[in-house]
Each structure stands twice: as C-alpha cells, then as structure tokens.
C-alpha cells in the first residue's frame, strides 16, 4: 500500500511518528496567532502556558511510540547491488530517535522553566527578552532538534540541524544589550560558518554516493569517490562539531555562555549539545558504519583534545557561568569518547549507545547545576557574572540549593553519591577499553582526575566559611512568600518575570530577591530528582535506548 502510493508520488505521512517533533512547532504557530489576536502586551500567562504545554504534549506524544520503529517520508532508492530497489525513509521514529527526543524535550522544558522563573531585571540591567519571541524561538529550536533525531537523510538532517541552531542565536541576542549582541554575533558567525561546512560536506557525500539517504553506498563505478566521500564526511563532522563545542570548534562557547541569559546558556549546554551529538551519531554511526575504523580515530582525537583543554581551562575559571561553560566543553569530550571505541562496524551500535548514555547523565547533572546558577544569579549583586565565592556556605544558608548543586557537581565529577556520573564514566570508557585504545584511555584517566579537581574546587565552597554573610541570610530553602510565580497577567506582560511585584522589588527588598520563584523551584526539584533517580537506578545510563 505504502509502496504503491510512493510509486504514484503520493506521500503517506505517519503522523504519530512525527508528532513529538511537530507539537512544539505547532505551539509556536499558536503563539504567533495569539500574538496577532490579543496584541503583544497582554496574555503573558497564556503565552507561558502555551509554550510549556507544547513541550509537555510533545513529551507525552513520545510515550505511545515505544515498541516498534515507524518510518515516514519514504522513497525508492537504488539498492546495494545494481538493479535492486529498496525503500529508504527520511524520518524514522526508532528507539534512538525517541530517546533523543525525550532528552531534548525534557531539557527544553527545564530551560523554559528556568527562563519563566526569572524576575524583572534590576535598574541598570539589560531589558528582558520579549515573551512571545523568546518562547517562539525556543519552541522552534526544540522542534528542530526533535526532527533532527528522526532524520535519516542528509537534506532533513541539514534543515533540522539549522532549525535547531539559528533560533538559538536569536535567543542569545534577545537580551538586547552589548554583551547579548556580542554573544549572539559570535554564535551566529560560528553557526553560519559551520553550516557552510556542513552543506559543502553534504554536497560531497551526495556527489560520491548519488543519494542523500544516510548509509547510501559510495558509487564504485568511478575511482577516487571514496576519498570524496571521506572528505565530505569530515566536513560534515566539522560542521556539527561546533554545536557540541568540540575543540577546536569551541571558541564561541565561553563568551556566548557568559553573554547569554543563564537559562539560554543552559539551553545551549543541553538541547544544543543533544542536537550536536544526534547529528554526529546519525552521520557517523548510521551514515557510515563501514568507515568506523577511520572515524573512530577522528572521534578519539577530538575527545582527547576537547576534554583536556576543557578541564584545564575550567580549572582556572572564577566565574560560575564560565566554569560551567568550560565544563560543558570538557564533558563534550567525554560524550564523544565512546565513539572512539567503534573500531569495527559491529562495535558501532554499542559505542553510539554509550555516547547517548553518557549524554543522558551529563544533561541531567548540567541542568541541575544550571538551575542553581540561575537562582543564585537572581540575587547576587553581580548577577550572572557572579564568581564562585557566591557559593560559599550555600549548603548551610540555603540547603536545597546547596544539595542540588553539590549533587550535580559530584555527578559531573563521577564520584559517589553521584553514582550516575560514575556509571556514566564506566559506560563511556567501556568501548574504548574494549578497543584497547590505551593512549586515549590514559588521557581519559588524566581527565578524570582533572575533572575531580575542577568540580570539587566548586563543591568545596558549598561548605566553606561564608565570605559575605549579608547575602546569605535567607532561611534554608524556603519558597518565600515574596516570590510570586512567574508572569501574573500584568500591564507589561510582554516581559518575562513576575511583573506584578515589580514595584516592591524595585524598592530593593533584598529578601524578596533572595527567594526562589515557583518555576525555579520546580526546575530545581526536577533536576535533583533526575540526578537522584539516575543514581539509584543507573541501568538507564547504561542502556538509554530502553
């Protein structure tokens, strides 16, 4: 039936398979419609609800897809041997797709919660992002990352990848001050340059195989096409590496993280990285498993350089956001490390699974850490530029924040009680040890030690003597009364934040400032819950595809 329709040029679309990726985009469209109907200055709560709803419904749409893989956007392509025809599909909802989509949607939800909990900026700060645009860009980027997870041809991959990338530039620049623009510009230049590389690579691959379908074989009729194919793949890898912040494509990372609003930095660190790894896994593990022995070397080199540079620079950082930025660089090395163990085609699946397992643990821990940084940036005099000393004695003064951050850092360092991080290290190292890549493993050992130093340097402050007692006098972990949930319908509803309490906050009531808003509280608890659950049941980290 389906094949017959395809022959007639009619596409039958398996809507359920596309739904998780489509629903956030649909929510974005509704958001635009709402904006057109009620105007930009009203209905702030509806906008937030719509954005949250789009992500939650997308997440729910993943659930019934478990079980069998569904494919759509299929077409006939030339088979492996001459004269045969097989059906290749542009979008597949496989366990891999669903796992990555879940990760993307859940991370986006967390980042949205973090953004919604933000208060009105203080006088002198940059003005806040307009609500509609912010949610719109976030939803579209999320939708792109979800589509990317299901993409199985280079065209879908390239378009979805760009859909996941470019809106983030807008998100970064939306804060409309000097730092935001600079950060956005850096990201934009890198993204555009990378896209050029990606497209060039796709063109070369297409030239060598004659098909955009992932996994198409190189045309053996002409000589030297294998080389063209290899160069094309290398360019594609270079094009997607910037999203993972793999050294040497990482240069934009620290400045962009520091210049962006912290929730958007969290988005870059999680959703963007998931998209980056998705593209990498698609291109390498699904696109070219037969070349695994070659690209595993490339992955190993990237991983070794990335984790070492990231950890060494992170060791010297004084600002919390910058430390997290470099930490995400180092962690990206760990995420890619398992791919280096794919020295032969039959090891590819295990290596890619291990990568995604590590990614899962990394995303959970990083989101929890970012949640705390977002909250601390709210009340610290230096705002988002606050240093590590802002965390002195946090475990005593605000236990919930201290516990969440402490646990997240231990997970990132891979030390119990952060069992999740420890198991993730086991998972990441297993394919590499299985491949007997001893040079790479010794670099990884060095980086475990460096990582412990990086994260403990921060964690130790949670219990350290307090430097500035006046900023930490808030009672432990309470959701204070002054912290109104985000976005009561107010007169200036176009901005993110509890506009209703604007007046009292402007008067400098420090106690109100040090409270935790409800979305932030939810995000903190979700982050902690994810880390704790994964630490108690680490089985999910080892087999993330279910």
């Amino acid at each position, binding site marked *: 039936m389906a094949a017959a329709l395809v022959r007639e040029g009619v596409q039958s679309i398996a809507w359920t398979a596309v739904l998780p990726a489509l629903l956030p985009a649909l929510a974005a469209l509704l958001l635009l419609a709402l904006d057109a109907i009620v105007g930009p200055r009203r209905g702030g709560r509806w906008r937030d609800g719509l954005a949250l709803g789009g992500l939650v419904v997308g997440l729910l749409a993943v659930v019934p897809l478990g079980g069998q893989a569904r494919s759509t956007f299929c077409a006939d392509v030339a088979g492996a041997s001459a004269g045969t025809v097989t059906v290749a599909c542009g979008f597949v909802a496989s366990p891999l797709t669903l796992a990555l989509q879940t990760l993307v949607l859940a991370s986006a939800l967390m980042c949205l919660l973090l953004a919604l909990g933000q208060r009105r900026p203080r006088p002198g700060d940059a003005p806040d992002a307009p609500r509609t645009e912010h949610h719109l860009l976030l939803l579209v980027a999320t939708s792109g990352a979800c589509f990317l997870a299901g993409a199985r041809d280079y065209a879908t991959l390239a378009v979805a990848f760009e859909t996941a990338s470019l809106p983030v530039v807008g998100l970064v620049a939306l804060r409309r001050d000097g730092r935001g623009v600079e950060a956005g510009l850096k990201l934009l230049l890198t993204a555009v340059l990378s896209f050029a590389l990606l497209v060039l690579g796709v063109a070369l691959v297409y030239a060598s195989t004659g098909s955009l379908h992932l996994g198409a074989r190189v045309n053996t009729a002409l000589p030297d096409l294998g080389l063209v194919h290899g160069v094309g793949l290398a360019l594609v890898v270079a094009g997607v590496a910037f999203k993972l912040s793999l050294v040497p494509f990482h240069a934009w990372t620290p400045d962009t993280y520091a210049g962006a609003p912290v929730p958007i930095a969290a988005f870059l660190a999680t959703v963007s990285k998931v998209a980056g790894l998705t593209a990498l896994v698609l291109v390498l593990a699904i696109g070219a498993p037969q070349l695994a022995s070659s690209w595993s070397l490339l992955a190993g080199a990237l991983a070794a350089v990335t984790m070492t540079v990231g950890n060494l620079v992170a060791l010297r950082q004084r600002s919390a956001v910058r430390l997290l930025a470099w930490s995400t660089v180092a962690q990206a090395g760990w995420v890619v490390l398992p791919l280096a163990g794919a020295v032969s085609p039959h090891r590819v699946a295990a290596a890619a699974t291990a990568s995604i397992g590590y990614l899962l643990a990394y995303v959970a821990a990083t989101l929890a850490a970012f949640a705390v940084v977002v909250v601390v940036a709210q009340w610290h005099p230096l705002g988002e530029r606050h240093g590590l000393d802002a965390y002195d004695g946090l475990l005593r003064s605000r236990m919930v924040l201290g516990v969440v951050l402490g646990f997240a850092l231990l997970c990132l360092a891979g030390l119990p*009680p952060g069992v999740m991080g420890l198991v993730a290290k086991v*998972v990441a190292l297993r394919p590499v040890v299985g491949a007997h890549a001893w040079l790479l493993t010794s670099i990884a050992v060095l980086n475990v*030690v460096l990582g412990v130093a990086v994260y403990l340097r921060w964690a130790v402050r949670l219990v350290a003597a307090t430097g500035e007692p006046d900023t930490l006098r808030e009672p432990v972990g309470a959701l204070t009364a002054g912290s109104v949930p985000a976005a009561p319908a107010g007169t200036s509803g176009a901005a993110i934040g509890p506009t209703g309490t604007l007046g009292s906050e402007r008067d400098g009531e420090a106690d109100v400032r040090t409270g935790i808003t409800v979305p932030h509280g939810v995000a903190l608890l979700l982050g902690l819950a994810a880390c704790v659950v994964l630490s108690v049941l680490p089985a999910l980290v080892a087999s993330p595809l279910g």
Partner: protein
Amino acid sequence: VSALLVLLLALPLGGALVLLLRPESWASRAAGQPDAVVRQVGLGASALTLAVALLTLTQRPWSTPDAVLEVDVPWIPGLGARLHLVLDGISAPLVVLTALLGLLVVVLVTSTSSSRRGSRGLVACLLAVEGGALATFTAADLVVFFVAFEVVLVPMWAVIRWWGDPHDEPGRREAATRFILFTAGGSVVLLLGLLLVASASGTTDVVELVRRQGDGMSGTVQLAAAVLLLIGLSVKVPVWPLHTWLPPAHTAAPTAGSVLLAGVLLKMGSYGMIRFVVPVVPDGFARVAPVLGALGVVGILWAGLACLVERDLKRLVAFSSVAHMGFVALGIASGTPQGLQGALFANVAHGVITSLLFVVAGGLKQRFGTADLRMLLTGAGGGLRDRLPRYGGMLVVGCIAGLGLPGLAGFWGEFLAVYGAWQADPVATGAPVWFWRALASLAVIGTVLAAAYLLRVLRLLWHGEVEGAAVTPAGYQRGGRTSPRQQDAHPHDEAEVRLDGSPDVELLHLPPGTASDAGHVSPTLLESGARAALHLPRDVRPVSARRRGDATTSETVVGLVLVVLSVVPGLLPWILLATTEPAVRHLLAVDRGFL
C-alpha cells in the same frame, strides 16, 4: 537474598543518610557540641552494624570455600552488572574489623566535642566510609566493587578537609586534595583493568571469574589487566612509590579519620588484589608479581628508614603503615597460600594495631596541639609512663605489637608473608628462587627497622628521654626555616620546638643549657613567648595551652578493645587463619591445605 548482608550495608549508609538529611544538622554544626541525635543515630547504626557483622559469623564462613551469604539481583543490565554481594572466609574478618572500627570511631567522636564544627556531619561521613568499605569487602561483581570502592572517597575527603587538624588549615586542605586526586586517579586505572577483564571474559561476576581462573583470556590481556588492576589498587594500599598521599592525609586527618583510613581504607586495596587480581588473571598476575613483591620490600625499607628520623608521631605511624602494607604486598605477590593468608592476617593485624597507635597519637595531638615527639614530651612534662599512664600503656602495646613481637597480632601476618615469599614458585612467577629469598631476607631487615623506630618512639615518649632537652621560655629566638630532618641530624646541638599552629612550619630554636628542667615549663610563659616570637594570631594555640589530662574514658575503652584485639589473634592465630584458609585455597585453586 540474604537479609543479613542487606542490613550490613543498609545500616551504616542509611544512618549516614538520616544524619545528613536532617536539616538541623547544618544549623547545629556551629555549636560544636555532639547533639543527641548524632549520638543515637550514629551509635545505633554502627552498633547494629557490628551486631549484624557478628551475626554473619553464625553462618560459619570458615567451614566452606564458598560464600555463606549471598545477594544477587539485577542492577545494570546494560553493563552486564548484577548487584552481587557475597560473604565468605576472606570477607568475614575484614567485615567484622570494619564494623568494629566503625563503632569505635563513632564512640570516639560522639564522646568528645573535639572539633570546632559539629560532629553530625563527621559521624555521617564516618558511617558512609564504613558502609562503602563493607560494600567493597562483600562485592562479587566488578562494577559493584568499583562503585563501592569509590563510595568512600568523598566522605573521607570531607573528613580530612573539614574535621582535620584544626591548627593547619592549608595543610589539611592540601592533604585532602592530594588524597582524593591520588585515589580517584588510582580508581580510574582500576576501572580500566576491570573493564578490560569484563570485555575479554564477557562477564563481570567474580565468582564466575574465579571459577574460570583466567581461562579464555589471552596472556597479553591478562598481563595488561593485571598491570592496570595492580596500579589502581596500589594507590590505595599504598605500595611504594604511590604512597605519597598517605602521610599528609594521616597527619591532617582527625583521629577517627586516621583510624578508618588505616584500618579500613588501605585494606580495600589489598583485599582487591587478593580477590580481583590473583584468581581472576592468574597468569598475568604471576608475571607482575616479582615487581609487586620488590616494590613491597622497597616500601618496607624506605618507610622504615623514614620512620627512624621522622619526628611527627602521626606521620611516623603513617609511614609505618606503608611498611606494614609492604609486607601485605609481598605476601600477595608470593602467590602462595601462606603468603595470601599472611597478607590477610597482616591486614587485620595492621588495622587493629595502627588504629591503636592513631588513637594515642591523635589524642596526644589534640591535647598538646602537636604530634612532634619532642614537643609532646615538653607538653606532657616528661615521659608518658609517669604523666599520662593510659596513653603510655596503649602506646607500649601498640609499639610492641607493631614491631612484630611473637605472641602479638603483628607477628603472624608478617611471618607468613615472608615465609610465603621464601616459598614462592620461581617457575610461575618467572623470577629465580634467589630473587624471592632476597626479598624475604630484606623484608626481615625491615622488621628490624620497625623494632628500631618503634623503640625510639618508646624511648622518647614512654621513658621521656630527650637529648639536650633543656628548655626555658627565656631563650626564644626566631628560627629559620630548617626542616625537621636537618635538625634531627645533630640533635645534641639544640632542642627545638615546632609549633604546628604556624603555617610555614616554623621552628623555635632553644639554645642548649639555658634551662633547668623540661618538666617545669610554664604553659603560660611558653605560650606567650611563642606568640610573641611568631606573631601568632590569638586563636592559634601553641603547645601546652590545651587540657593536659590523660586519655578520656571513651578513649580508654576504645584503646582497651584494640589492645585486646592486638593480643588475642597473636596468641590464637588459628582463629583468623582457619577462617580464611578454605577461601584462599579456593581462590588459588590449590587442593592441599596449609594448616
């Protein structure tokens, strides 16, 4: 699923969790007083753990080479790892030792308000260390072993970092950092070895791996795995030259931390070698064994020589740990049943004896603000025999047992280890007979060194003999930065006083002959003189300003328990040897019994 085994791990870890999660724990920390909850939960959890550990003995682990208690449930299917715990003759002594030391350190901590910070976090950390160690000693799965091995890191780091030597903040920070970086690095190397074994053999179950005795793994893989595993575990043991984290850690750690560090943590390394290296990759191990044995002996001699000139009592005991663990390494390296039995015996004996010595050293340091041998003498106002008889008594038993006097616990383990090395199989290990016999002989020289340095301690502290000890507060001079070693080279020229309160380890030089009697130094004068000379801040208290009583009741009780345990296994060594023998024979796949 054995409920006893589950309880054994759940009690200490649960106790730690309860203590940590009670919100007032952080509020009450500043108070510095042990609160009632700490006492109840801490003592309750650790006492129950000990009870459970003793109850496991009713399963008669000495009667069979196999596990008498077992837990085996799925855990991480993606890694092929199961939550597999067993208790057999090899685990049992270490489990009981750990549970006992766990109770003793909680008693020590809850009975004294020794630290500026509250003791709740400290007790929680100690319980977590205990739980992690118990999990390590019962793990029968490579991944479970690794996770359990890592559990102790952060709590122990916290113990050193925050409850360590209150006089030396930079020192304890550096010691804690060094501890966690060294041991975390070692753990990853260990992990690589474990993963190599898992990937080469296709299973992570140690019971199965022991049954296979390395079948199915090529010689190269076995060698690589043995090297990785031994390097990783050697950091923890520690084997020379990977021991450099230990002396600072011991010096900075509080007494309870030192006791667990020496009595429990180090054992995790040697236990890992016995259960996860020797029987799992036997061919690879045999090829590395000569190196391990040689390093063990180097450690024995090196640490013995260091102890001869070491002036800080805690560092001295720490170095003596390196020496004792050198015997353990030698015994394991021999690959003989006797050697392994000796290593297991020495493990337990060292745990008891060193704990006893650390109780004394820690108590003295707490009272006098220093563990420097001469300063202690000045502070105590003479030999411990007369002034502080309880500490003195414990010190004598600890030292005598530590130097391996027959009839005390220290003797049998080291005797068997040396005997095992003498008997080592030259064919399997690829090292000639003379090599092993030379190692055994050198190890015996090490016991002579042990006698020399421990008797030196006794001469100084117990008798109170110090050369040129003429001290008055009148003659203070500002000292240069001379290292203790250099000073020790000519002790008759001048007696010097080291103040631990000063960050740079400054020395006060006292001209000889200017004073009357070391026993009559006025604490007030000494203190004010020291302050003036060193510009010390008020809260840093030099020697003699502290309470100078003898051991408290709880310290005495703890000490007595440890004294009894230093004596009983020495008189009745078969208790331990018979427990470990069947399991050791099973590990080595040898039929002939030793006893």
